[in-house]
């Protein structure tokens, strides 16, 4: 089967649209919308060529990212696909590919072009051929283990070198199973059979990657899904030393861009479902509760149930679930509460909107209620007209082109890779409950009506301390996933975060917020560094806060704490930049509201200073508990 991006809609007339785009004054935007179509290998190359003709710098809302690929096979054909897949996510990915097979020298030579390129991401794309060559068929288990361990150790050395040289995020490609059976089905029982060596190689690779915080690009898994013939072709290997076929390049590029985007906090966050003929079969308003097709006993009913089960799994890993349906709200909610086969419960849904309004407006309301961007939403609706309507009016919302048969909805959602992860933290596991608790908090606010009374009634307390090793992953994730309350939108690798934590003069702060409804988790983090020229002035390198705790005076308490710590170190002032992005407008007035005064801004940001000799600790409704210092 040819690897395909079936969740993307087919372009009505790609050829004509591309030529129109090239003549248009907003060419880049036009090309970005063309990137949302299902493009084959040839169309991907054309779009990339069109992009390369642009002389203009990317406008606002596009981010430049530098990715180097260190490969032991030809990967040049992947660059166009990576750039197009980046454009699909409003990332301008600059790709550097070193000379064929020279990655070791390039890594070691500080004068190499690779070093000048200074990649933020390094992708290792290494074939299993060398390892395979080192394992004779008759090798014992111990001999195989040793050869594989040696190969993995060599990779780890490369990872370490790349990390130390560039402070880059490391991505390692898994090994395609390019082998043929030697013993037939018996292959799996022979330690030295090529197929078994590849399996073991991938197992050991995963373990090493987990230990070294390296991200994987799992093309081995993708090739199992599509069939190895779609990904690897002996002809292409012999002719051009391509380990991945040109036909698979668009999907491979998309998978690479997913990992890059995920590391940058651009994965989707919320899955929004239509109800009738999507989460269940039938129309509840017409067919009633009894008439719904759902659950065991009917093939279609089980297919809808399978979709609910998948949604529930995603919820368990931290994806927020929402409903957007044209229905009477009471009737729709009744199905959740009363239908015995419903796997999703009302409490699994963080935003439930059922009415007769335009769905585009309802999606806006859902994003606003959850305090996330519209570009964090995925909208699943069986109705092609609704899908087209949303794509047209809200192009930033991901709308998968669903297969005709509900049986294949789960596969389609999974293929699209909307929720690519770079970590799975305890915060992720609890996120859904936190959003549910937020709904209860909202209800409480409506009861009390008065903000001050409401905040007092929450019985909030803060736990804070410096970055600790156990929280590094979560702190890194918070810096990289937060888009709204993010003062400078500087992104960090886990290694950089560890470096900040270890630097003696740097003040690192992580905050947890507790209230009567539970633990909101790690909700804010801040990095303060003394100015080398004026050590009594501390500069906020970045400060982020989860949107879950907006509007609770938490920023005041966080600043109180920061001020106290900086004073303890003899600091006299705190300086901070606010760098505006399309998403962080909500904190444009943050620093003045905290008592900072404006300095002359550099271009592209505003600059603020807080005089600690005059700062008075603000009173809030948040108590301190368990200061970790």
């Amino acid at each position, binding site marked *: 089967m040819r690897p395909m991006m079936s969740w993307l809609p087919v372009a009505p007339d790609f*050829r004509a649209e*591309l030529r129109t785009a090239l003549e248009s004054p907003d060419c880049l935007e036009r090309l970005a919308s063309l990137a949302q179509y299902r493009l*084959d*290998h*040839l*169309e991907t*190359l*054309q779009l990339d*060529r*069109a992009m390369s*003709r642009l002389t203009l710098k990317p406008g606002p809302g596009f981010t430049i990212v530098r990715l180097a690929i260190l490969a032991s096979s030809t990967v*040049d*054909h992947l660059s166009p696909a990576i750039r197009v897949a980046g454009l699909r996510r409003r990332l301008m990915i600059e790709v550097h590919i070193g000379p064929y097979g020279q990655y070791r020298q390039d890594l070691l030579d500080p004068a190499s072009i690779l070093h000048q390129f200074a990649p933020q991401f390094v992708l290792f794309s290494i074939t299993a051929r060398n390892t395979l060559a080192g394992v004779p068929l008759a090798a014992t288990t111990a001999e195989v283990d040793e050869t594989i361990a040696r190969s993995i150790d060599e990779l780890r050395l490369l990872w370490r070198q790349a990390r130390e040289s560039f402070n880059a995020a490391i991505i390692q490609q898994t090994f395609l199973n390019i082998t043929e059976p030697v013993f037939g089905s018996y292959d799996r029982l022979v330690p030295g059979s090529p197929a078994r060596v590849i399996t073991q190689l991938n197992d050991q690779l995963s373990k090493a990657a987990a230990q070294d915080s390296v991200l994987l690009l799992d093309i081995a898994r993708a090739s199992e899904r599509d069939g190895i013939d779609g990904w690897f072709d002996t*002809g*292409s290997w*012999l*002719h*051009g030393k*391509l380990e991945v*076929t*040109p*036909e698979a390049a668009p999907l491979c590029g998309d998978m690479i861009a997913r990992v890059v985007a995920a590391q940058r906090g651009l994965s989707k966050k919320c899955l929004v479902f239509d109800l009738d003929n999507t989460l269940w079969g039938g129309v509840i308003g017409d067919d009633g509760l009894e008439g719904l097709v759902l659950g065991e006993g009917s093939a279609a009913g089980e297919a809808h149930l399978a979709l609910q089960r998948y949604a529930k799994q995603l919820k368990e890993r931290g994806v927020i679930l929402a409903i957007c349906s044209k229905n009477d709200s009471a009737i729709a909610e009744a199905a959740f509460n009363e239908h015995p086969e419903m796997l999703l419960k009302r409490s699994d849904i963080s935003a439930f909107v059922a009415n007769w309004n335009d769905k585009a407006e309802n999606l806006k309301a859902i994003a606003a209620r959850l305090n996330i961007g519209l570009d964090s939403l995925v909208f699943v609706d069986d109705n092609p007209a609704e899908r087209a309507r949303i794509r047209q009016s809200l192009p930033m919302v991901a709308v998968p082109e669903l297969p005709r048969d509900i049986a294949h909805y789960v596969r389609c959602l999974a293929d699209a890779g909307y929720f690519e992860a770079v970590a799975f933290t305890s915060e992720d596991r609890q996120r859904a409950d936190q959003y549910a608790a937020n709904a209860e908090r909202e209800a409480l606010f409506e009861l009390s009506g008065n903000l001050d009374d409401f905040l007092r009634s929450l019985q909030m307390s803060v736990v804070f301390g410096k970055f600790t090793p156990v929280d590094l992953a979560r702190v890194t994730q918070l810096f990289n996933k937060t888009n709204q309350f993010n003062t400078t939108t500087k992104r960090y690798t886990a290694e950089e975060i560890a470096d900040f934590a270890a630097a003696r003069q740097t003040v690192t702060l992580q905050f947890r917020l507790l209230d009567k409804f539970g633990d909101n988790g790690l909700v804010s983090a801040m990095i303060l560094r003394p100015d080398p020229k004026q050590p009594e002035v501390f500069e906020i390198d970045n400060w982020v806060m989860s949107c879950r705790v907006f509007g609770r005076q938490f920023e005041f308490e966080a600043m109180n704490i920061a001020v106290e710590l900086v004073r303890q170190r003899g600091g006299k002032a705190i300086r901070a930049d606010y760098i505006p992005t399309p998403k962080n407008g909500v904190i444009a007035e943050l620093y003045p509201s905290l008592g900072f005064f404006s300095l002359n801004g550099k271009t592209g940001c505003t600059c603020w200073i807080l005089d600690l000799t005059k700062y008075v600790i603000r009173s809030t409704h948040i108590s301190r508990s368990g200061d970790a210092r």
Partner: protein
Amino acid sequence: MTDQEILSAFTKILRDLLLDDSIVLSMETRRQDVPNWDSFNYINFIVAVEIKFGVKFKVADIESFESVGAIIAETKALLR
């Protein structure tokens, strides 16, 4: 399919691939006659032809095609 039909399909593929509508192919055209038709884009062209016509060329043939006419002849042979 006539030579001419295949030739015009090839021309369209190469124009798309190189995003250059001024390209005109003939049976005698060689790769070096077309600006930017480098070895990378030669492979891309071959893959696009294989997909479009549902054929698969032999590795040895891909290496030895001398001209557009040779590719057309082989495509016709495979379609038969």
